């Protein structure tokens, strides 16, 4: 559905590429995570995909139609949630959404229903300038949904939210996916990506260093380990064993055969650990 091929972008015009030969495809109804630290090139790619930045070199197409040929009606079908809340601060939360509905030529959702879904119904008549960062984030997220889009671009949608509110947002994202919406999720929150995404791409210094499902990435790059708890006399002891190593595998077999085993848990590496392993950089 979305096809990105050999994408480059150079802000300076001096051959210093912020995006350097990036290619990926996103299938319809998929949640595609774009993960990387600040300055890695995530937002540049998203901005090119949404037409905010002019396509310099490479291809970006939606159902085989190049982003260069898309007209303003394209924006009837997409929703974009920005990392930094960008609202009319002198308008109320309700007025912000109401005004935005008037820009679309497709049926839009009831602003009050959306405000209710993101927990802002009680603050609907409050000016957006007086909202907290988390409330602004939710309002921007709600605005992205107002035209019931087929494609959602979400930039750090759970940033600055408490775990409970973040769960509400994640639930809405899952629901949108079930409705057939394709979602491009830009984040440096590996846990959110792990929970939500069908596939993720790791981006570092403008290049994609890995792209696969979270599970496959963990299987491919994570070191598998097993945590075993067993009784040794009166005490409960714990060992972490890496089964790829012959010595650990022998220890594991010995424990299972000779000890009173309390628990056995297989352990996978987190996406963050894999990212560090691949790039040598942390995400935050």
């Amino acid at each position: 559905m979305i096809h990105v091929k050999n994408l480059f972008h150079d802000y300076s015009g001096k051959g210093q590429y912020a995006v350097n030969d990036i290619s990926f495809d996103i299938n319809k109804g998929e949640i595609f995570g774009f993960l990387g630290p600040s300055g890695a090139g995530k937002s540049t790619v998203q901005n090119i995909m949404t037409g905010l930045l002019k396509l310099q070199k490479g291809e970006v197409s939606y159902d085989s139609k190049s982003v260069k040929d898309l007209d303003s009606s394209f924006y009837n079908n997409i929703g974009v949630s920005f990392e930094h809340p960008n609202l009319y601060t002198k308008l109320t939360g309700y007025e912000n959404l109401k005004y935005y509905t008037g820009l679309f030529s497709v049926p839009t959702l009831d602003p009050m229903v959306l405000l209710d879904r993101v927990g802002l119904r009680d603050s609907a008549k409050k000016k957006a300038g007086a909202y907290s960062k988390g409330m602004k984030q939710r309002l921007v997220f709600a605005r992205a949904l107002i035209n019931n889009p087929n494609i959602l671009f979400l930039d750090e949608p759970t940033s600055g939210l408490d775990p409970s509110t973040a769960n509400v947002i994640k639930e809405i994202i899952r629901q949108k996916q079930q409705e057939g919406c394709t979602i491009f999720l830009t984040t440096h929150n590996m846990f959110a990506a792990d929970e939500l995404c069908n596939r993720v791409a790791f981006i570092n210094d403008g290049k994609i260093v890995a792209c696969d499902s979270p599970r496959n990435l963990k299987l491919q790059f994570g070191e598998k380990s097993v945590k075993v708890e067993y009784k040794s006399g009166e005490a409960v002891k714990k060992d972490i064993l890496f089964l790829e190593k012959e010595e650990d595998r022998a220890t594991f077999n010995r424990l299972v055969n000779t000890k009173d085993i309390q628990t056995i848990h297989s352990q996978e590496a987190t996406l963050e650990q894999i990212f560090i392993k691949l790039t040598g950089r942390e995400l935050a």
Partner: protein
Amino acid sequence: MTKGWFNLFRKDLVIAFRNALFWVLLVTLAIMIIFIKFIIPDSQETNELGYFYDKSEAGVMAEILRHSGLEEAYILNSTDEIEAAVADSPQSVGIIFEGSLEEPSFTIIHQSEISSYQRKMIDASLEALMARIGGVNRQGSYEVAFLRPQTAPISGKLAAIPPLLAFEVLILGFMFIAVFMFQEKEEGSIRAYRISPGSTATYILSKALVFLAIGLVYGLALVMLTIGIKLNYGMLILILTLGSILYSFLGAIVAVFFNNISEWFVVGTGLLMVNMAPVISHMYPSFSPKWITYIPSYSILSLFNEILFPTGKNLMPWIIPLTLGTVAAYIVCYLLVDGKLMKEGH
């Protein structure tokens, strides 16, 4: 398009009402109307006093002035007295007469610098006085011809209305559109507009419409409450509309090059000052160098003058270039806003 236009118009109007600058302008309007209507007198009377001292031996001039009806209080007896009188009254003029009626000599005493206009008036008055004493009748020695039918003299305070319309009402659009654009850049709301189906034309025209609505209310209220209702309001609305839209476009053309009001300030206020240059031509019609006539406010000011105080001039030579200028400004505005404001990465 209409739906989108009205939607943005309504949003910008709400934001304008919630902007402190709007209320400052409203209070300014009220103050201007009160001043023009009730406080500024119809004409500025300058109480210039003339003190006279006849230093000639015969004292004939003093006698002539007494017979002509000059009060005794203004006929003094020494140079010291006349200097003291002038010192007490800054706007007064002292005149000392010496010599004879055949060979008169006048010395003028005044406190501060006087204009060449005032000096020539005094010269002319003294020359006329001497001619009258000599029995020469100057009346009928010249004739005044009028190019157009004579109109009623314009009250001094009402003559300020055309410049107020041109430099208060029209620059609303120039300033407000910049303020709105900077606010949208600062809060980032322009980014949300960029990824919506809203067009560049809708964005520009909806803003211009808001400032036009405010400008029309402001301008019409100013004219109705000061001059009255007996004038060509159709033409006034047309020029207010053209002028307001033109200045909104010009304001946007300038504002796209800046990120905030601080960056804009020097260039913006500089342009506003240049824009006010035609007021000099308005006050001194003989000062109209070619470059001043190219400033849009020159034509607009002339149009307001003619609409409010008609003299029968043909308005088309001003209206046609103004209309063409507005269309040209829109095209430039569209290209700049579309290229610089609706896209990122500049």
